């Protein structure tokens, strides 16, 4: 039921994003997930979402030992940034690690540098991370894999949260959203009013 509701919400949000692009007066809905939080950034400093005011953001949850899904999303975001052109300066990507044991700020910084994305890696204590995961309605689970050299794997949700200049969640992009859909959505977010 939850899944159906989310799918419906996504469909509505995608339609809203498209209509916002064709008619600038239409406003994107403000979604009832997300909000302000404080974590540690990949330079070791404290980071608050509110410090981005004036910039839009893309938030997603992942971990740097992720074999497949996270590099796929980051590669896609590199294409999004290329397509955004001058607007790219107005968008910050926040990569929130759900594997604080392995993802130290230094590891996050090193691994994110290999993607052409204006991304800030964020980590924290497990309770700090869990609080943000709950705030955004995301999920993750640490799964032991004793027969693998990976030791454990982290299953995690893959939605991408489109955040406006005031820190509000305006679009939930699904994992299979195309570069085109994300670029269109971000342009709608950048065009939306901030009171």
């Amino acid at each position, binding site marked *: 039921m*939850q*899944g159906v*509701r*989310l799918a419906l*919400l996504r469909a509505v949000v995608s339609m809203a994003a498209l209509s916002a692009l064709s008619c600038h007066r239409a406003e994107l809905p403000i*979604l*009832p*997930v997300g909000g302000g939080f404080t974590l540690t950034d990949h330079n070791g400093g404290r980071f608050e979402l509110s410090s981005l005011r004036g910039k839009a953001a893309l938030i997603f949850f992942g971990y*740097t*030992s992720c*074999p*497949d*899904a996270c*590099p*796929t999303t980051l*590669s896609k975001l590199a294409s999004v940034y290329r397509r955004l052109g001058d607007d790219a300066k107005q968008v910050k990507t926040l990569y929130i690690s759900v594997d604080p044991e392995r993802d130290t700020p*230094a*590891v996050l910084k*090193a*691994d994110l*540098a*290999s993607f052409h994305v204006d991304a800030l890696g964020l980590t924290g204590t497990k309770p700090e991370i*869990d609080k943000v*995961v*709950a*705030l*955004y*309605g*995301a*999920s*993750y*689970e640490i*799964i032991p*894999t004793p*027969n*693998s*050299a*990976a030791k454990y*794997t982290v*299953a*995690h*949700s*893959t*939605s991408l949260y489109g955040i406006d200049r005031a820190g509000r969640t305006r679009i*939930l992009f699904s*994992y299979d959203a195309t570069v085109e859909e994300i670029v269109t959505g971000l342009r709608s977010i950048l065009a939306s009013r901030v009171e």
Partner: protein
Amino acid sequence: MNAKTNSIRNPQALLTLSAVGLLFVTGLFAQSPAVVAKDAWARVPAPSKMETAAYMVLENRGSERRSVVSASSDMAEKVEMHEMKLIKSEKPAMNMGKSMDKAADKPADNSMMAMTPLSEIAIPAKGKTELMPNGIHLMLFGLKTRPAPGDTLTVTLKLDDGTTVPVQAKVRN
């Protein structure tokens, strides 16, 4: 005159027998595997990691189902077979508040991408299995040197019939 002395006295027969035997033995080992790996590639490893995923298309030209039962590489300590799958979180959505009504209007994403180790990768008879992002991949752990884009990683796949399949994976971003 016994048979033994007879065969020794007839070197031509001995040579023929040996040649037949040799052909039989080489035939067993040189038999080309029914499975071939095509379009293989691997990701450039993340800067802090000495591990990476490799992808390819496995084509089975034979008339029997085959499966990859293990993989190895001289360039890595261990090669594993993994599959990425979407699973549902069994825990209640983390955003559930005290009131269910409150939770109802708050969307939760409890669909998660998870990695599962595989014990085999099946390739149907006269068919193919694609190893690609968001599906099955080979995971190379403990790379001995850091590969750069354009380099080639060599991997050997062992099939259930004992034959092996060489793989040359091009490294790219």
